[in-house]
Structures are given as C-alpha cells and as structure tokens.
C-alpha cells in the first residue's frame, strides 16, 4: 500500500532543493506581508491624495479633480471613506502610522483638532492666507474661517494661526412644512417668532393628531445644539462661556430654565413621539415625507430633501426665541474643511489645489452641484431660496469651535442624556441640572 507520507519524505524532504523552495516561499510570504504593511506608496509629485467622508459630494469632487488635472496636469485623487465614524477612526489610525494623505478633513471637537495641530500633522495655512494682502483669507466668510482658527492665547496651547480651508458653510436652524401649516390653519409665511407661539402650535399639532418636531436627538449633538441656542438667548454668550470655565454652575436658574424648555416642548405636543432615539437620517426622511411639521436640521438638508422629495414645500426659521434679553443664536460656520498634511512631500501643491478649490468658480460649482452653502463670499449667487434663507442667518451664527474653550465630554454627555431623561419624563429639570453640575465638579477636580 502506498503511503503518501513516504512519497513526501523520499521526493521532497530529502531533496536539497526543498530547503530552497521553503526559503523562497517564506521570503515571498514575508515580502507580500511587508509590502502590505508598508507606508503609502510613493507617488509622483504631481499627484495629490485627499481623504474625505462626504458621500453626497464625491461626484462633484471628481469632476473638479478632472478639471484641475486638465488645467494644471496635477492629478487629484479624492478618496471617499464613509460612514463618518469610520472615516474619523481611519484618520486617527493614519496619523499614528504616518500614512495621512496630502489633504484630509477632521471630524471631532476643537480639542481633537488642536491635538492634531500640536502633534505636527497639520500645516499652518496662515502665511498662504496672508499672501497678496490676504486675498485668500478675505475670500471666505469670517464665520467659516474662525472655526479653523486658533487665536492668540487660545486655551488649547496651539500656536495662533489658521489651520484649514473651509469648503462650505452651514447653519443649523428650524424648518417648517408650509403645506402642513395650511392644514393646521396657520399662515405658511409667518412661522412662530416666540417660544409661546411655538408651544401654541404644538397644541394644534396634538389636536390634529399629526407629528411636530423631528431631529436627530438620539445622536445627542443636535440636542446639545438647540439647548445651547436657547442658553445664548436666555443668558448670553458670556454667561455660557463662564459656565464652561466653571464660574457659573449648571444649577443656575437660567440653566434650569433651558432644561425646562424641553419639558414644556414635550408637554405641549410639539415634539415627535419618539424623538429621543431618533437618528437624523430618520428625521430627514420623516420631514421629507411630510410626516412632521417642524425639523431642526443643518443647511446640508436642502440637498437631502431635494433627493427625497423634490416637491417638499418648506421654509426656514430661527428657533423661536424665549427671551428678549439676548439675541437668538444658532450654530453655524464652516461645514466641512480641509487640512494639509504638514509632513506631506506635496504640501505646496496641496495648498495650491486648496486655493483653486475654494476659488469662486469652483465654489459656485460645488454650491450648485451639492446644494451646500459656499465658503467663498463671492460665490453666494443664484442659490435656491431656501438655501439663501440659511445663508442669511449666518449673522446669528456661533459654534463651540470658535468659543476658545471646550466643555468636558463627560459633561456634554450628561447634559444631553439629561435632556433626553426630561423628555421621557424620567427626571425633572432640577435633577438634571444637579447631576450635570456634579459631573462638572468631578471633571474640574480631576484637572486640578
């Protein structure tokens, strides 16, 4: 009987060549492995690689890359990595592995941005912005640029400068469905101006058994955004920033009033039943399908709604104000920005491309193709009416990234989850205020 093992032993193991074959196999395997783990492949100087997460903008980016190559001969690779969470992780991993592309965007809070800068991954664009008497710098909306700026004496310890170029701007506001307004017997050209009027509409919505406000409050940051809008309106910017610095407690009556607003909204029936676990994509679908009277969303929604329901008849409004003490603020500024890799061999080419990308013609094309607000002031022309309503509110815009100080993540989480607890009737505004303050004190104590 033939024993396969014997055949192997006689024909293979005893052969002198077997060791060479083994050696070659090992070298090949290791070679493949090493190549697979090696850093970014060496590319010619005339190729710029850009990483981004903006699925809706990829076709427009590809078209612009084609135009740029035709004009300059420089090839631009726009590499899309979605969803945004996966993209954010990829960028962090790439900075550890020193494989960041020539141009990339950062998703996260200002303190993450600061860490990237301090670690030397991001090029200071200030000298380029200041060239030709600040020609590039002056082409942007100041609100868009300030999000990417670290001013003198910033609390993050970053060298003052501008570290990214905005490619679009956004504002986050309320939207209302004009057809559903008519159905409720309301004037579709007169959205509610005050919080009282808003709550009154909530009662009508409840009586008509339709649904009120939708937003991605299950994702937390949208809830944080509206709460901060009202905090600015009730107590002003200085007091909000004093709270972040730890000088004013969250148990202050003004903050309790902010928390109470959410209780009042829930009680009036103006909130969608189930808003606390809603993601923004669901909220967008509901509003686009005319299942909700109000939405709280950013200007990017214009493109989203257009794709979902081109006939949607809606208007834009500021969140109805609670107080006359301070102006109503909304979050706004740079929607998306691109940074240049400070360690890139192609950084000069990358800066040139960013200058071209943010020039008025390219910005106008991006605005037209993607329905996003351009970051270049000169490109705000012939944009849709709804988009111009978003743009006109830019003067009310603020953003945590321009405050120069960030609240602790643990406090933000307790704050947002606390509001969810108020909406589901689990906790009172006073209880939430106390809990948030307790966490604030704990975090402050940790840093002392």
């Amino acid at each position: 009987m033939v024993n396969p093992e014997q055949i192997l032993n006689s024909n293979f193991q005893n052969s002198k060549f077997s060791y060479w074959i083994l050696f070659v196999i090992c070298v090949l395997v290791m070679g493949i492995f090493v190549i697979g783990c090696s850093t970014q492949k060496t590319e010619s100087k005339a190729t710029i690689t850009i990483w981004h997460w903006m699925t809706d903008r990829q076709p427009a980016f590809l078209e612009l890359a084609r135009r740029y190559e035709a004009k300059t001969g420089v090839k631009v690779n726009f590499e899309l990595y979605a969803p945004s969470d996966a993209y954010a992780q990829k960028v962090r991993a790439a900075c550890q592995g020193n494989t960041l592309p020539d141009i990339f965007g950062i998703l996260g809070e200002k303190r993450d941005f600061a860490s990237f800068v301090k670690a030397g991954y991001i090029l200071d664009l200030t000298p380029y912005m200041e060239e030709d008497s600040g020609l590039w710098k002056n082409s942007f909306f100041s609100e868009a640029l300030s999000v990417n700026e670290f001013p003198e004496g910033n609390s993050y310890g970053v060298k003052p400068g501008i570290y990214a170029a905005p490619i679009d701007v956004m504002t986050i506001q309320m939207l209302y469905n004009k057809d559903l307004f008519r159905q409720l017997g309301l004037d579709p050209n007169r959205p509610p101006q005050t919080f009282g009027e808003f709550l009154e509409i909530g009662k009508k919505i409840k009586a008509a058994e339709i649904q009120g406000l939708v937003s991605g409050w299950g994702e937390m940051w949208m809830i944080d955004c509206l709460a901060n809008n009202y905090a600015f309106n009730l107590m002003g910017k200085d007091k909000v920033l004093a709270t972040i610095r730890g000088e004013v407690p969250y148990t202050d009556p003004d903050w309790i009033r902010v928390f109470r607003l959410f209780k009042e909204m829930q009680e009036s029936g103006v909130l969608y039943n189930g808003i606390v676990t809603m993601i923004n994509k669901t909220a967008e679908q509901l509003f686009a399908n005319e299942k909700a009277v109000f939405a709280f969303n950013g200007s990017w929604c214009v493109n989203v709604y257009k794709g979902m329901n081109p006939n949607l008849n809606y208007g834009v409004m500021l969140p109805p104000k609670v107080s006359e003490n301070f102006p109503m603020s909304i979050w706004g500024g740079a929607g998306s920005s691109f940074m240049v890799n400070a360690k890139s061999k192609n950084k000069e080419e990358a800066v040139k491309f960013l200058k071209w990308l943010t020039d008025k013609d390219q910005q106008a094309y991006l605005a037209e193709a993607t329905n996003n607000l351009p970051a270049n002031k000169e490109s705000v022309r012939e944009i849709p009416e709804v988009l111009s309503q978003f743009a006109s509110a830019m003067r009310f815009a603020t953003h945590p990234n321009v405050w120069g100080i960030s609240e602790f993540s643990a406090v933000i989480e307790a704050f947002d989850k606390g509001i969810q607890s108020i909406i589901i009737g689990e906790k009172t505004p006073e209880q939430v205020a106390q809990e948030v303050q307790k966490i604030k004190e704990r975090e402050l104590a940790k840093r002392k």
Partner: protein
Amino acid sequence: MKVKSTLENYLFVLPAVIIFTIFYIIPFIWVFQLAFYDWDGIMPTKFFVGLGNFIEILQDKIWWRSIWQAGYITLIALTFQNALAFLLAWACDRQIRMKNFYRLIFFIPPVLSEVVVGLVWQWILDGNYGLLNHWLVSLGFPHLVRNWLSDPKTALTTVAIVHSWKGFGWGFLIFLAGLQTIPRELYEAARVDGANAWESFRRITLPLMIPVAVLVGILTILGTMQAFVLIIAMTGGGPAYHTQVPVLRILASMRGSSRFGYACAQGITFGIILVIVSFIQYRFSKRARQYQ
C-alpha cells in the same frame, strides 16, 4: 536530520506566527499597556496614570449599569432565545413535512445584516407609524400601543427580544446538529421498554443534549454580552442610558471623549467579566453533567 526536520517545521509555521503576533499578540499587549495611560489617540505623548483608569471604572455608575443591561439582554437570550432554538430544532429533527424549508427559514435572521435588521425593526416598532402598533389597534388592543423603543419601560426588553429573534438561528443549527447525533436505537429501545414521548425526551434527549446546551450557552453569553450593532441601529443606546451596553460605552470613551486609555481599561475589565462568567457557567455545567 532531526534538527533539519524541526527547522523545516518552524519555517512552515513562521509566516503564520509572525502575522498572528503582529495582528493579535502585539495589539493585545498594547491594549494592556494603554489601559495604564491617559491618551487621546492623536498626540504622540501619553500620560501614565497607573491604576487610575481602573479606579475610575469602579466608580463609573453608567458603565456598571451597561453591564447589568447587557446581562439582562443575555438572560433573555439564554432563556427565551435558546428555548425557542431548542424547540424548533427538536421539531425539525422529527419526521415533519417541509423540514428543510423550515431549516432554511429559521436560519435567515442570523445571516441578515444587523444594521438592516435594526432599521427594519425600528420601522416595525415606531410609535407613530409602526406596523406593530397598527396591528395592535386592528386586533383590538389599542391600550397596548406605545413607543416601544423610546419608552424607558419597554426599550431594553424590546431590544432584547429583537436580538433573540436575530440570534436564535445559530442555536437552532447547533441544537439540530446535536439532536441528529443521538442514536435512534436509544429511542426505539425506550419505546420497547414502554417509555412515552415525554419520558424519552426527559431521559434520553435532555441528558445527551447537555454538552450541546453548554456550548450554545457559552456562545450566547459571549455573543450577547458583546452585542452593539443592532442596538446602535435601533436606539443608539437611548433613551437616556436605557439601552446602553458595555461595547457602546467603550466606543463612547474612545470616539466621543477621545479617551483611548480609559476605553482600553474598560475593554480589559469587560474581558475579565466575560471570562469569569464563562468559567462559572463551565463549572456549573460540568457539575450538571456529573450529576447526570
């Protein structure tokens, strides 16, 4: 000759050992190392905090609440999900018509994407336009209508039931394979001795299925305690903290707060808990087998 043969063997396994070391062993060691540091995942510098992260975990009420909630989902999976899997496997092991069709149907949920399942169930369970509430009203139970995923009283149980629906197919397959290994002669001998169906089930099927049940139990515990995709898709861990589970907390530490060191410490703590639970279950089942 022996040395040559040994060297040859080592050469063969070397690539696998290197790949395993780089992608498994070294990251595993790094996780342990990072657990003793405060690091944001970006800066090249890390700050040594000793046992600080672990001490903070001990005081982190939300973390322990997430463990308890994962335990609750696991309990439902161990009981409801596995009982369902066993009963269906037992039914399909018998001579019934279209049993292959049922086998196929029962195995569809596990192979579906968790995100898709989560979104579909979110739509079914929606408080305003959901199918479930619509059916409840149609069947004359309007008092049962609620917002299943946003109501703190029902959110966790609802998530646990959907998780069980999604996962019972694995248990079903393993139980069915186990049932098919039981020699048919045992049942025939029992019938000759006058045993009825219940006695055959109790005296033959159940004892011989204990090792399989142990395996399914361990897999259920390990799989369910680490569940998170379905939960993200359905509730995102809300309302408030009502459907938070440990993996979501680890993700929140890493992504939301940029606290990689703390997230690693949470991962280690969670791993230790899983090992302890698995060990207890193993000892318990060993004792049960000895008793049998």
